[in-house]
């Protein structure tokens, strides 16, 4: 059991970073997924996109160095790296839908065993809008859901999503603080688990059916 939320997020970000490959173009969602950028393996060059209009996003500017013309998709001041480029929204989403983004990492309200994802609306309660999430999930080559295993103690990995979907059957991998789950045609395969949990605990916190082979690796975090 991992109860510390800060630790959980760190575990998730570190493990997702292991999925990065040299030369990739990657889009990280707002919040936890953004932390993945802190753990790019040494010697690897990964280019991050910000869908408001840049690739090659750099770190937060030093105080006093902010430029009102340069922000990220969360509206915060940001910088650009020497190999980066700025462009308009049509180019940005051409990169996304056109299969030029190798990987996107997003949070989820719910994800299910058919690879469906819900993360943009709770009808009548929270209606932020989908922003670029629908385009990213249906367009990126690989979709990784990075989220804490449960929400308010309730399972978020379900047999069938109950909330309106962001996209149908597009999720490839689910990374939580407890385990790594691969979405396959046969269902959800438990690939790795954290050293501080058990299969029983994971099962009890997961509504979806899990396919469990004999050998499950320990998460390398």
């Amino acid at each position, binding site marked *: 059991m991992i109860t510390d939320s800060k630790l959980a997020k760190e575990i998730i970000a570190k493990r997702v970073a292991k999925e990065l490959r040299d030369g990739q173009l990657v889009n990280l969602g707002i919040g936890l997924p953004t932390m993945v950028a802190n753990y790019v393996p040494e010697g690897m060059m990964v280019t991050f996109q910000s869908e408001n*209009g840049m690739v090659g996003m750099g770190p937060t500017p030093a105080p006093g160095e902010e430029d009102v013309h340069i922000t*990220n998709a969360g509206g915060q001041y940001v910088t650009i790296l020497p190999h980066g480029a700025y462009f*308009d929204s049509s180019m*940005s*989403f051409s990169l996304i839908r056109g299969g030029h983004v190798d990987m996107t990492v997003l949070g989820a309200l719910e994800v299910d065993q058919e690879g469906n994802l819900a993360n943009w609306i709770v009808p009548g309660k929270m209606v932020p809008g989908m922003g670029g999430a629908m385009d990213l999930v249906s367009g990126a080559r690989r979709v990784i859901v990075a989220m804490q295993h449960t929400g308010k103690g309730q399972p978020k990995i379900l047999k069938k999503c109950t909330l309106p979907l962001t996209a149908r059957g597009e999720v490839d991998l689910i990374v939580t603080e407890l385990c790594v789950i691969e979405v396959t045609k046969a269902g959800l395969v438990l690939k790795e688990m954290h050293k501080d949990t058990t299969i029983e605990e994971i099962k009890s916190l997961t509504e979806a059916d899990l396919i469990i082979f004999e050998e499950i690796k320990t998460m390398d975090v």
Partner: protein
Amino acid sequence: MNKIIKPEQVKELFKDGMTVMIGGFLACGTPEKLIDLLIEKNVKDLTIIANDTGFPDRGIGRLVVNGQVKKVVASHIGTNPETGRLMNEGKMEVELVPQGSLIEKVRAAGAGLGGVLTPTGVGTIVEEGKEKLTINGKEYLLELPVKADLALVLGTVVDEFGNTFYKGTTKNFNPYIALAADTVIVEAEELVKTGELSPDLAMTPGVVVDYIMKGAL
């Protein structure tokens, strides 16, 4: 021909019930001075087409807070709680469109296209009421063009003919709304003489710009 107009002349172009496209992404690239004038004139029942509704005190959100908006077409309203509140109380209509689809709907209008086919939204509530086509075995939604009466654009460097350069991430929707509206007003952060902006940097050709108002950084 003089395209440069003063704030009082800009205000004369604003009418109740207009459909207005406004550039910007969470207020980056949004013409705040033109929004000031919309608020000063207090025109009502506007339909706003934009990426998002900014923040309550910054960007497009200020028009929402001031009660001037009848309908919003946007991809994201989460950073402005007032938009959600008015929507839930039935006081303002909100149409949410995926960001990549919204920019293509605007682009289609300005480019003379009958619409665009996108895989985004297939299998979600976004497909409700839309025509679905299967091409080479893959499903696409038909997203139709969207036009406006007025486009409010922010340019970083603008020459007196309207040729416009957009710095950094201020581009976003700006170059496309400049093609999709009957009347186009550019707020110029920096206004230069015609010929002083390199034609290579003219991301919006001045021929499509009707009016220019000097803004300020």
